[in-house]
């Protein structure tokens, strides 16, 4: 009998804050400026200089803590994390250690361990083929990024699949974007994610030995990387070997995992309290201000959509976790051209997303009001849902008013008058086999008759009405 394994995943997410200036000096943040143009003696770690905490970064940290339901430390401190590397000008990173700004919390199904503030390292570029510092022809440092404010969010090991990790990160990204504290762009490095991964036999409660997967730079690679690492661990264990604690790099091009360092080579960071800074003391006024600045968050919005608009949990989350979809949906509901929000939600998350993909519907040619009108026409049976999809195709391509499109294309639903009765009679005459089967009690045969009517009427007929008329005319 084979054992089946369950992966257990915890995430560490680094978020660059979109403050105006750096964490400990007055340099403005850099967006692709000339290398080393956004630097000063403080962020270059020159002798005698001292850090001063960016108050805005603390405010952003508080917003994140409140959004994640963390406990805010009334007094937290910075430590020095010591190691030598050319991207670290002082030879230590100023980071929070045993008393972080925010402790605990939860976002969606995942518990938060802690949230703390720190500074980013500079950017190293190695010239030469290896891409590694020791084999490089030369290496250059751009200190523009050095000292950018970072928040590190650490989850509990509370995630049980790569897909769940990806879905949760999407929620986190939307939440942070909603807070306005970061650009949260993985490609540009303003959102970076490490994953701690272990496996255990299903039913086991203790955690297995974990490995750390470093710095994956897209949600897709995170999912693939985690899946690859889970597969590697399962294969090891099934072959009777053990998982070694190590740090790994996932190469998305080849799909391979390489070891960066083992537990034995791990640094001793010699943390100690940063003597150049005073503790962060969070006052009631700071907390009140953060509370007041807190926007509605995706999880809350999803809940409100469920309650106010009678949406299913799934649809509500699809709308709320993509801010732009939620905004579009609310605008469509607000236009009052359709009094069926659930139908609008279904059209937005189904038909519209199918046509626009990851695009923002707010930027499309389909205005929220047009969509609302379209759904209204369908709900009031002036337009069949099939014809509605054709109208939507036209709206996506050219924009405009759905009623006008319906008129000009002749797509209005037929009423159940003589024209439809005639079409049904034609269909009965043209499909004797199907009629015979139907009379024999083979109900599926009615499909051929309905299909005939739909073809002849370009989808303008109502399926239910056609069924009723077929049975009526056949005396069934």
């Amino acid at each position, binding site marked *: 009998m084979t054992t089946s394994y369950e992966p257990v995943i915890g995430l560490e997410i680094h978020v660059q804050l979109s403050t105006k200036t750096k964490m400990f000096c007055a340099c403005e943040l850099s967006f692709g400026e000339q290398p080393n143009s956004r630097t000063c*003696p403080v962020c*270059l*770690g*020159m*002798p*005698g*200089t*001292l*850090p*001063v*905490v960016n108050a805005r970064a603390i405010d952003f940290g508080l917003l994140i803590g409140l959004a994640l339901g963390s406990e805010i430390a009334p007094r937290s401190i910075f430590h*020095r994390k*010591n190691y*030598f590397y*050319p991207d670290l*000008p*002082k*030879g*230590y990173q100023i980071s929070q250690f045993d008393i972080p700004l925010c402790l605990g919390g939860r976002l969606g199904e995942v518990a938060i361990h802690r949230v703390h503030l720190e500074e980013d390292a500079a950017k190293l570029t190695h010239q030469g083929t290896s891409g590694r*510092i*020791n084999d490089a022809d030369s290496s250059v*440092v751009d200190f523009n990024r050095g000292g950018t404010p970072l928040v590190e969010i650490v989850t509990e090991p509370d995630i049980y699949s790569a897909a769940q990790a990806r879905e949760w990160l999407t929620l986190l990204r939307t939440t942070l974007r909603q807070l306005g504290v970061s650009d949260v762009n993985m490609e540009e490095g303003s959102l970076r994610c490490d994953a701690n991964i272990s496996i255990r036999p299903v039913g086991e409660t203790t955690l297995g030995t974990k490995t750390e997967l470093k710095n994956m730079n897209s949600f897709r690679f995170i999912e693939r990387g985690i899946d690859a690492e889970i597969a590697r661990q399962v294969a090891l264990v099934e072959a009777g070997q053990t998982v070694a604690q190590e740090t790994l790099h996932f190469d998305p091009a080849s799909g391979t995992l390489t070891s960066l360092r083992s537990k034995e080579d791990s640094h*001793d960071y*010699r*943390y*100690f309290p940063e*003597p*150049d*800074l*005073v503790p962060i003391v969070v006052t009631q006024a700071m907390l009140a201000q953060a509370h007041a600045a807190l926007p509605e968050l995706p999880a809350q919005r999803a809940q409100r959509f469920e309650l106010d608009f009678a949406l299913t949990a799934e649809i509500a989350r699809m709308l709320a976790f993509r801010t732009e979809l939620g905004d579009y949906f609310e605008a469509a509901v607000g236009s009052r051209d359709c009094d069926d929000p659930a139908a609008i939600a279904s059209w937005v998350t189904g038909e519209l997303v199918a046509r626009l993909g990851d695009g923002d519907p707010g930027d499309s040619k389909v205005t929220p009001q047009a969509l609302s009108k379209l759904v209204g026409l369908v709900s009031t049976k002036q337009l069949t849902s099939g014809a509605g999809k054709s109208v939507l195709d036209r709206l996506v391509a050219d924009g405009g008013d759905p009623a006008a499109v319906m008129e000009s294309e002749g797509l209005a639903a037929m009423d159940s008058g003589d024209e439809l009765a005639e079409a049904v009679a034609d269909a009965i005459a043209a499909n004797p086999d199907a009629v015979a089967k139907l009379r024999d009690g083979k109900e599926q045969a009615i499909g051929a008759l309905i299909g005939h009517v739909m073809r002849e009427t370009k989808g303008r007929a109502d399926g239910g009405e056609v069924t009723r008329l077929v049975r009526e005319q056949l005396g069934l």
Partner: protein
Amino acid sequence: MSEILDLTAAAAGAAVRSGELGASELFEFYRQRAQDDQLNAFTWVAEATPGEAAIDGPLSGVPLAVKDLFCTKGIVSQSGSRILEGFRPPYSATVVEQLENAGAPLFAKTNQDEFAMGSSNENSAFGPVFNPWDVTRVPGGSSGGSAAAVAAGSAPWALGTDTGGSIRQPASFCGIVGLKPTYGAVSRYGMIAFASSLDQAGVLTRDVTDAALLLSEMVGRDPRDSTSLEYPGSLVLPTGRDLSGIRLGVPEELTEGVEGIEPGVRAVFDDALRTAESMGATVETCRLPHAPHALSAYYLIAPAEASANLSRYDGVRFGLRVEGDGDLKEMYERTRSAGFGPEVKRRIMLGTYALSSGYYDAYYGRAQRVRTKIAEDFNTAFESFDFIVTPTSPSVAFKLGARTADPLAMYLSDYFTVPMSLAGIPAISIPAGLSEGLPVGLQIAGPAFSEQRILEAAYALEGAFAFDASGARRSGSK
């Protein structure tokens, strides 16, 4: 120009203000004396005297010498180290700016122990400094250059820094006044760091009045230093004439049965106490139960902080770099091996060890707990006493080379000064007399922000001691 030489900084400033003396003439006088210095007290001297500068500031154009470790824009700032040789920062320390704005132009930079680590100035990459009282002896350290320059009359006044005694002990060895303010009273921005939680800028001057004058322009909060504090009130020139009602505490733990305290030092100290009593003070024994552990705690905390503070000297961005044949780690090792002297290396290793995983609690953590206890001891003592008084150092200036082979003996020269540093409280050293023809300092320590009261008491005592330092001023310069 012997009359200029005999003027205190305050008196020289008054002469400039009254028009009896030109500011340029004063600057040129000291620039020339610094050029001609025979004590190796300076690491940089201005090449020329500026034209008649504005002397509007309260410091009236009296030129200032500052310890090498203060960053001075465009002027070498090397902290006594080979690793920063030739380093010219593009910024000045806040205090240097403050004092220049107040009318004290920079005219020279002074030698020091490398990164302020030392008590004899023998750890400087730029050679030892000689004591103007006896050139076969050390001036103390780490602000040895500043102390020797002021004592020898080659600087009217000077800035130093004090981490465990680095202003007070050389002031004592050189027979001048040295004041270390409350931690946080003066900005640390632009001071090349040794141990951040202890480093404090202060003054080395000929007399107590000069100390008050110079310090009054230095205190205050600096937005660039988060640990600096708004100074409560302002400092004025002292006028104290007696010590009536002043309660002096002599810590039993620091004076009774302390090994290594020289009898001559003890005698000057006892005389000073009798003088204080004759001026109305009461003198009683007090308790600082944890003070005997101060040196041990200090030699964990200061090296721990130094081990991190000195990590930035890695050859990547500034200062010395010795190439490592393409290997990064080798470049680091070669640069730091060549750039740092033996005492600095010793303290980096001590500090690195004290912070290491598994040892942190036993060393750094415990040292911090001792530090808290020492601060509490002082608080308790100050409930019953206005000031704590001790000899500044257990000995007079010792011979060059006498303690270089024995770091522990060297560390003992700061036995009386380190407890105040750990507690972050202000303390002054004033010359109280001679032993074997060499100066002995009296240390007066008070609660945080009691600088004005300390200056008043020191001023009163200074008048009574009538210490004559003019002999040293005549030596040391050609």
